[in-house]
């Protein structure tokens, strides 16, 4: 991967990639692995980008696909700690992946969601339109709003139960 490609096509979207990878990993080691794999996959698949969507949408899509694939691979190898019942909250809350405590708590709650719901809420929080969310996830735009509301309620409930 050339430095130019990394600097111009990946680095401007690094924050987005980091936010997504954090939602699918519970340790710093995994996070760095996922981040690197996403970068590599963006570089690998650059020839497949035909300009039918924006580059940022493309980055979102690749990042989510890579995270979901790695997560499933990990699950199939028996690393079950990503299941919603047994999440290691300590990694993000006590050790603090982020400086903001409330943000750490929100991430813990996000990791309790299903894989697709995590993707959905991340895109929503990144202020993507329903159309863009549907495009990235390859779903129908119709019930996205309802689903987001349900996810938000669930997140609030999890945070209240766990941290308040």
């Amino acid at each position, binding site marked *: 991967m050339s430095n130019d490609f990394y600097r111009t096509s990946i680095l401007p979207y*690094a924050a987005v990639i980091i936010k997504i990878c954090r939602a699918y990993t519970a340790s710093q080691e995994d996070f760095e692995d996922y981040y*690197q794999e996403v970068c590599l996959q963006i570089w690998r698949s650059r020839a497949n980008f035909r300009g039918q969507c924006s580059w940022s949408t493309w980055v979102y899509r690749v990042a989510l696909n890579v995270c979901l694939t790695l997560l499933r691979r990990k699950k199939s190898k028996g690393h079950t700690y990503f299941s919603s019942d047994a999440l290691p909250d300590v990694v993000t809350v006590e050790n603090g992946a982020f400086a*903001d405590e409330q*943000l750490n708590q929100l991430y813990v709650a996000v990791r309790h969601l299903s894989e697709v719901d995590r993707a959905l809420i991340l895109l929503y*929080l990144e202020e993507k339109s329903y159309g863009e969310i549907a495009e990235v996830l390859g779903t129908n735009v119709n019930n996205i709003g309802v689903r987001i509301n349900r996810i938000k309620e669930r997140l609030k409930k999890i*945070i209240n139960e766990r941290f308040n």
Partner: protein
Amino acid sequence: MNDSIETIWKEGFLHEKSLVAPSVNDLYNRKSIHLVDRIKRRFQVNLVMIVVMVVLLPVICYFMQVIWQGVAAAILLLLTAWYNKRQIDGIKSLDQGATSFEYLRSFDRWLRDVLARSVKVARFSYPLYFLIAVSTGWSAWNRQGGGDMPLIAGIIVAAATLAVFYFSDKIYRWDVRLMYGRVFNKLERTIAEMETLKQG
């Protein structure tokens, strides 16, 4: 929880310093270790399978009343296992302190070297396995009162043995591809990708 989720997200990331991208210089380090470990595990599994066969074959052959063929095959398998074990031990000589790219390259060279040597061994072991199989069939034929082996059958067996000897190289490579094909392809792809990455 006083703030809305949207507010937590927006304000949380407003001054967030941890959004600095991790380094991607050592991109393949762990990947390489996983890949080599996977191949090593496959070798070990293969070795265990051979040892199990060494134990089982004479027992099965005893019940099939072809005990000598079973013992012969078991000895041949045992020699194969011993040879494979020595080859696998050679992995330890690879420089683990090298960069992941160099490590993978030296692993690939070692693998090619082992395969080249194993082809020579297969040249003799495959015809022997074939002859043991024929001998087993012949014993069964004899027990059913088949009598001596007809000359034409003897000629066919001899020709087939020569063919196995001649094509042992191809048979061995096919055998290896069948067992390790996917993981070897992965190794090739990874090295090619790393080369491209290095060229930038």
